[in-house]
C-alpha cells in the first residue's frame, strides 16, 4: 500500500507536467497544506484541543524563513530550520498560556486572540515585516528555483513532507500518542492516572507548531512571496476545515482534506467567484452525512467490503 502511494507520488509530477506546470504547482501546494493539516491534527484530532490559532505557526514559520533570506545572507539550510524553530518558540509561548484553559470554546478563543495579535504585529510593523506589502521575491537557490519548472521543488517538498509525516506518524502511534488520546477522551481520568495534563498538552502543542512551521516554510518558498494574510484567522479556519473534510479520526485524513480544499479552491474559483459558497455547501453536507469526513467514509466502505468478502 505504502509502496503504491510512494510510486504514485514519484510518477505523478511527470504526468502532471505533461498537462501543465500549474498542476505541478498545485500538487506542491497540496503537499505543504497536507503537512500543515496533519500537524494540526495532532492537537485537535489526537489531543482534543480546538486550536483556532494555528495560522500563527504556519505564518511565523514562513515569515522567519522569508525574512532571513531577504534581509540577511543566511544560507537556505539555516533559514529553513529557523522557520520551524521560530514557530515552535511561538507555540511554546502561546501554548504555555493556553493549555491550562479548560473548555473547547475558551481554548479556541484564547488561541485565536494570540494568533490575531501576531497578525496585527506583522501587519503594522512595516519597517521589519514590510507590513501589508508582504515579502516579494524571496531568493531561492537555482537548484530549487521554480522559475523554469516546479519539478525540483516538488521533490524537495515531497522529501521533507514525507520525513515529517513519518515522524508525526510515529509520535501518534507511540506511547505519547496514546497519552494524548486519553487526554482528549477524559482529562479528569487522565489526571487520576497520574498524567500531568498541561505538560502533555503543551508538548503536543509545540510539536504541532514546529511542523506547522515546516509547512509554512515550504509554502513561502513555493510562492516566493508571502503576505500577512497567511497569519489571518482565515488560515486557522482553513486548516480546521481540512481536518473536518478529510476526517480527524484518521492520521492521513487531514491530508486528504487539504487536497480537496486546495483543488476546490483552484478549480471552483476558475468557474465562479463564489467558491466559498460552494465550499460551505459541501462542508455542511459532509458534516451532516459523513461526520468522519471523506477519509472516514472511504475507510468505512473498505471495511464493509472486506467483511462482506469474508462472510
Amino acid at each position, binding site marked *: 500500500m505504502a509502496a503504491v502511494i510512494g510510486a504514485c507520488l514519484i510518477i505523478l509530477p511527470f504526468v502532471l507536467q505533461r498537462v501543465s506546470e500549474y498542476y505541478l504547482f498545485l500538487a506542491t501546494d497540496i503537499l505543504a497544506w497536507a503537512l500543515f493539516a496533519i500537524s494540526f491534527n495532532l492537537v485537535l484530532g489526537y489531543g482534543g484541543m480546538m486550536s483556532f490559532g494555528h495560522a500563527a505557526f504556519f505564518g511565523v514559520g514562513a515569515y522567519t524563513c522569508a525574512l532571513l533570506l531577504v534581509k540577511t545572507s543566511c544560507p537556505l539550510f539555516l533559514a529553513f530550520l529557523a522557520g520551524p524553530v521560530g514557530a515552535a518558540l511561538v507555540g511554546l509561548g502561546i501554548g504555555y498560556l493556553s493549555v491550562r484553559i479548560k473548555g473547547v470554546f475558551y481554548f479556541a478563543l484564547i488561541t485565536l486572540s494570540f494568533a490575531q495579535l501576531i497578525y496585527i504585529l506583522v501587519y503594522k510593523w512595516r519597517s521589519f515585516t514590510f507590513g501589508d506589502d508582504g515579502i516579494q521575491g524571496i531568493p531561492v537557490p537555482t537548484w530549487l528555483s521554480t522559475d523554469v519548472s516546479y519539478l525540483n521543488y516538488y521533490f524537495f517538498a515531497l522529501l521533507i513532507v514525507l520525513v515529517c509525516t513519518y515522524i508525526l506518524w*510515529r509520535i501518534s502511534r*507511540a*506511547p505519547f500518542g*496514546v497519552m494524548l*488520546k486519553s487526554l482528549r477522551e477524559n482529562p479528569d481520568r487522565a489526571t487520576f492516572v497520574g*498524567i500531568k495534563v498541561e505538560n502533555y498538552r503543551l508538548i503536543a502543542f509545540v510539536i504541532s507548531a514546529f511542523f506547522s512551521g515546516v509547512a509554512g516554510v515550504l509554502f513561502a518558498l513555493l510562492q516566493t512571496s508571502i503576505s500577512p494574510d497567511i497569519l489571518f484567522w482565515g488560515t486557522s479556519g482553513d486548516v480546521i476545515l481540512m481536518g473536518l473534510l478529510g476526517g480527524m479520526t484518521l492520521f492521513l485524513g487531514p491530508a486528504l482534506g487539504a487536497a480537496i480544499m486546495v483543488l476546490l479552491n483552484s478549480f471552483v474559483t476558475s468557474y465562479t467567484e463564489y467558491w466559498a459558497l460552494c465550499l460551505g455547501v459541501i462542508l455542511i453536507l459532509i458534516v451532516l452525512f459523513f461526520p468522519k469526513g471523506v477519509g472516514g467514509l472511504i475507510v468505512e466502505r473498505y471495511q464493509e467490503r472486506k467483511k462482506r468478502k469474508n462472510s
Partner: protein
Amino acid sequence: MGILEVKGLTKSFGGVMAVAGVDLNVKEGTIHCIIGPNGAGKTTLFNLISGYYKCDGGEVIFRGKNITGWNPEKILKLGLARSFQVTKIFPGLTVYENVQVPVLFNRGAGLNFFSDAGGMFKDIIDEILSMVGLGHKAHEPAGLLAAGDRKRLEMGIVLATDPKLLLLDEPTCGMSPHETSSTIDLIKRIADQKNLTVLFTEHKMDVIFSIASRITVMNFGSVIAEGQPEEIRCNEDVQRIYFGDDRCFSL
C-alpha cells in the same frame, strides 16, 4: 500504625461543613467500608484524601508521609488510587487502550515518542484485563460497554497504576444484584491477589457485611461509629440514622 491515617479533616462549602473533623485509621490489608446516609460527606472525604479538593484543616498521612495538600498525581505516585461514583473511563478508546494508558504512564513510557505502543507491556495489560474479566472484550470501544463492565474497566484502570491503597466510591452503584455480587467477588479476589488495602463507600448493606473487615459510619460530616461489622450491626446510633428505631440489620 495504619496505612492511611486521617486526623481532624475538615472541609466546608459555603456555610455547610461537608466534612467536620473526621478521624480515620485504615489498617494495611483490610477491606474498610465507610457507610452513611446521602450527604454524610463520604465522597467529599474521598476527594480530600485523594487530593481532588484541598482541605480546610486537619491532615492526611499515607504510608507514613503527610500528604495533606499534595496534588492528585503525586498522591497517586505514592500508591493511592481511586475510582469514581460516576464511572470515569476513556469512552472513545478501546478497552485495551483504556488500561494501556495507565500501564504505559506508570512505567515511565509516557514521554516515549518513537516506539510502537501496540506491543509494549502487552503481558501486563492482558493480565489486568483478564483479572477484571474483560479479556474477551479487549478491542471493543469502551464507550459501548454496559454499566457493570464499565465499573470493571475502571477497576482495571485503577489497578494498572499499581496502587497500595484503593479508594472505591460506591463500586456497585446502579448495578443489578447479579452484577453486584460479581463485582464484590472481584474486589475480594483482587485485594487478596495483589495484597491491597481497600477503602470503599457503599449503600447496599448486604454488600458491606459480606466483604468489609471494618466499618466506619458517617453522618453530617462526622464519624459516629467505627468497628467490626458485628459491632456496627447492633450499634444504636447507626440504627437510629438508618431506621429510626431499634431494629437490627437483618440479613
